[in-house]
């Protein structure tokens, strides 16, 4: 097994075990989205209009939930020292940890989204479009979150700082993700325009995130 494959398997195993945080994201997502109709009231037209925005906001918060422990856990138990000593480039290590995090917290959200969309009066085509935007957009949320997780690695209450650093950076993804989902639900703009920009944002964050996070980690470990 190559070093990176070993790391991917380990991180996914830890996330899926008790206390690992993989299920917490999905449960949080479910709870937040379920609460909204109670707060807004049984106005089906309104729910349908704000549904994509609610699902996107909930997905954003849920994917940040377990992110603060991503590097802090490895830092606290000394694993990060050994990982830094390894032959695998830190940028790739960071990207693999991001991938493991997305597979265990982001992907379950994407799979659950159509089910929860029913609660918000979304019909099937709209649900499918929403799922597609989440599938493309949640990796960007995770990989931008990597930067915050790396900056907050040595701080005791890193989770709060993480949210403050990361949430403003996710604004463009939120805008175009919700725009694409809304375009599919209500129109009038075509789905493709905001969706293509969302894809571009994701591709950019897949590249920028690991490099920025690795630089932050190197700085912190000095």
């Amino acid at each position, binding site marked *: *097994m*190559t*070093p990176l*494959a*070993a*790391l991917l*398997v*380990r991180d996914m*195993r*830890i996330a899926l*075990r*008790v*206390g*690992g945080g993989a299920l917490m994201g999905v449960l949080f997502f479910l709870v937040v989205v379920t609460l909204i109709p109670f707060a807004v009231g049984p106005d089906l037209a309104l729910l349908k209009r704000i549904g994509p925005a609610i699902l996107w906001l909930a997905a954003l918060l849920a994917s940040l939930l377990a992110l603060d422990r991503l590097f802090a856990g490895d830092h*606290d*138990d*000394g*694993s990060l*020292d*050994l*990982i*830094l*000593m*390894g*032959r*695998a480039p830190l940028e790739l290590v960071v990207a693999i940890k991001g991938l493991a995090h997305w597979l265990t917290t982001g992907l379950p959200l994407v799979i659950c989204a159509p089910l929860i969309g029913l609660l918000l009066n979304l019909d099937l085509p709209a649900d499918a479009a929403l799922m597609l935007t989440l599938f493309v957009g949640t990796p960007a949320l995770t990989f931008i979150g990597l930067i915050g997780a790396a900056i907050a690695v040595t701080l005791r209450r890193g989770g709060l700082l993480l949210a403050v650093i990361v949430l403003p950076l996710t604004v463009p993804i939120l805008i175009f993700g919700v725009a694409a989902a809304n375009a599919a639900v209500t129109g009038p703009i075509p789905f493709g325009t905001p969706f293509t920009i969302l894809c571009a944002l994701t591709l950019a964050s897949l590249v920028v995130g690991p490099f920025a996070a690795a630089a932050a980690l190197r700085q912190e*470990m*000095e």
Partner: protein
Amino acid sequence: MRLTGVELTCQRGERDVFAGVSFAVASGEALTIGGRNGAGKSSLLRMIVGLLHIAAGRLTLEGGDPELSIAEQAHYLGHKDALKGSLSVAENLRFWAGFFGVRLADFREPLETVGLGALARLPAAYLSAGQRRRLSIARLIAVPRPIWLLDEPTSTLDAAAQDRLAELMRAHLAGGGLILAASHGPIGLSGAQQLRLDQTAPSPLVGGSWGGESGGDARASTPARDLTPPATIPSSSGAADE
């Protein structure tokens, strides 16, 4: 293979922890690093594996693999055990072997060597401090690397495990490896060179003697000259100042 440090200086928070430290360790040799709390024993080991910046001085490895850095040819056994509580004993070992590029055909053998063979399937969270340390030592056996950097390796081990570790260290030295160990007491290696990081240190009752490794603030109250103790290797080693 020969690991040489010349006039090494370590700075933490703009303050010298130690300065002018020189040492040389060759294949089959061991070096024990002594000194009071906060003298920089751990910092020296972390410097060698590149986890701390070298403020001044040179660190060279002759006779190693030129394609690899010193860190990639070294094992670092720190205060923290680098174990995940939710993974089993065997899974922890297999991960580190895999991450360091070794395909572990039989994870039982290293575990048996450190006396954890019967606990292979137990989550590491249930291990005692000494058992955790033994599992970390199993990593050193599972992944062959010539340089062992051990930070207080015996601190949580019982007498039998300390003897076992001494045996493993002697076997490693006999196989051409080299060992640098930070320790307050004897670690069971006769004939090891000794490096004291605080030879001119003042009475331990002055100022920050309770500071510990991260006690930069506590040390601030001691006079500045005490912060840069010139450390040398006793002449008996014959390896200094090459």
